[in-house]
């Protein structure tokens, strides 16, 4: 799929919800727990299970990125699945906070 800044997505097999902070420039097969992520207001398909090899969990408020550090996905609700590009888990991004300005 093609991501867009501000797009909100949810997992079909766990509580994970995310928002796209940086969409990157190429297509991505964004999954969580081994299944495609869907729009935050869409209903998950029946009969899907969390794949054990993609069940490391997501962390609230953390940013995830691909190996080229092109995209940035922020977790707004934590869950049991791992977010991945297809079956390749995304990487937890190190925080570089700006100084507080207001």
């Amino acid at each position, binding site marked *: 799929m093609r991501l867009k*800044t*501000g797009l*909100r997505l949810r997992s079909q097999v766990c509580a994970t919800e995310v*928002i796209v*902070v940086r969409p990157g420039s190429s297509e991505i097969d964004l999954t969580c727990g081994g299944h495609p992520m869907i729009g935050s*207001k869409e209903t998950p398909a029946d009969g899907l299970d969390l794949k054990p090899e993609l069940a490391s969990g997501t962390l*609230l*408020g*953390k940013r995830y990125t691909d190996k080229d550090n092109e995209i940035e996905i*922020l977790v*707004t*609700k*934590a869950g049991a699945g791992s977010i991945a590009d297809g079956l390749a888990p995304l990487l937890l991004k190190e*925080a*570089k*906070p*700006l*100084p*507080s*300005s*207001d």
Partner: protein
Amino acid sequence: MLLDMAATAFGDRVALGGRGDGITFEHLVRVSAGGATLLRSSGAERVAYLGGNSTAFPAVLFAAATAGMPFVPLNYRLGEDQLDGLLGELHGPVVVCDEAYQDVVARSGLKVHRSEEWLATAALAEPSEPVEVDDEAPAVLLFTSGTTSKPKAVVLRHSNLVSYVLQTVEFGSAEPAEAALTSVPPYHIAGVGTVLTNIYSGRRLVYLPNFSAGAWLRLVAAEQVTSAMVVPTMLARIVEELAGARAATPTLRSIAYGGARMPRPVLEKALAAFPDAGFVNAYGLTETSSTIAILSPDDHRTALLSPDPAVAARLSSAGRLVPGVEGEIRDSAGAPTGPGEVGELWVRGGQISGEYLGLGSVLDADGWFPTRDRACLDPGGYLFIEGRADDTIIRGGENIAPAEIEDVLIHHPAVKEVAVIGLPDIEWGERLTAVVVPAAHATPEPDDLRAWVRARLRGSRTPDEVIFRDGLPYTPTGKLLRRQLVAEIGSPTTYERT
């Protein structure tokens, strides 16, 4: 979304108010949900807030968001007629206000809640489920300060504010003991920004309703405040209050300033008074959902210590653009300028609104917003703001930014405050008039001040006249009221001319 995330992660931390008696993040969610029920029962479409800095302000802000209603903080210092006008533009909002303004609002026939009462009732009211609204729906309507034109309501969408927070703040990055002190009023974009960014960081918010330098210093100490945001006029009063002494504020690690130009002597005194605090210069507009450029504590230190004049000059800059915001300097024909050339600053990004209620968007076809600020970028990407394009003085066909001359005059030991304005002139079109507030016990000579400028700037920058006054007119948020000054000085009998 932002508050829910915070409540999930650190629900039992204090979010608002005193260390001992404040409201926790969890309770803030409860108050917002109950408050949403109260707001929705009014049948109104918008929520206006008319009051000072207090716990009620963020609570109403989040309740309005929960209710899916745009939130409109109003300037409580406006006169009754102006307030009536703004309330009229909002088509019958439900109003939450401090007791002092209750009568004014009641006379307009609107549904009104007193803020303290509202807060108590909200905590007990049936909680509402959050109303799902589109990300592109308006979240906050904020009237601009109107120093250069009639106040206009800027439309800040959920997507603008969320973009600002997610791009510039790290979730839960505050330590449990951190606290932020807000002294800017709720109707200022920094007042709104501070709620969102600190709640998202997990940092407690402490409010000072009526600013005075002494009260600010006492509250920082009493509440063990770790970060604070002030406008330049406030910082000037704080360093004046300290009178050269070091501040006794051991917990204070960060002081952010913005909202108007910071006079360099004030900044230098503040750096000496708060040697352990990092200083942050934040530049932004209402239309850009608060901060779009930051001069960090490291930038301040580097500039102070650098032997390279180009690097040292950055102490007067607004720093670099924040992630997610692009900037470009364009000339009057709209073409991009080279490094160091002055033109108008245009910006683009998710947090940029550029839209006014009833007037539509001023973004160009590619999403760029003209800030109306004259600025330049140095080769390192540091942004220097000269001032509003509307303040430019045209003397003998030459464009002159008042700030250039003000920055020189403010360093004269006999000058405490200064404004340079253009007054109508038969020969020059506009003549350069420096309006000076002398330093205590100083009696500067106009010719000395003119010579001071002539020695440092091009001849065309030398003020044609110098006028002395006891004070200059500012908005309570520190913006110089240039047009008022021009109007006041237009009556020559009031002031001694030279």
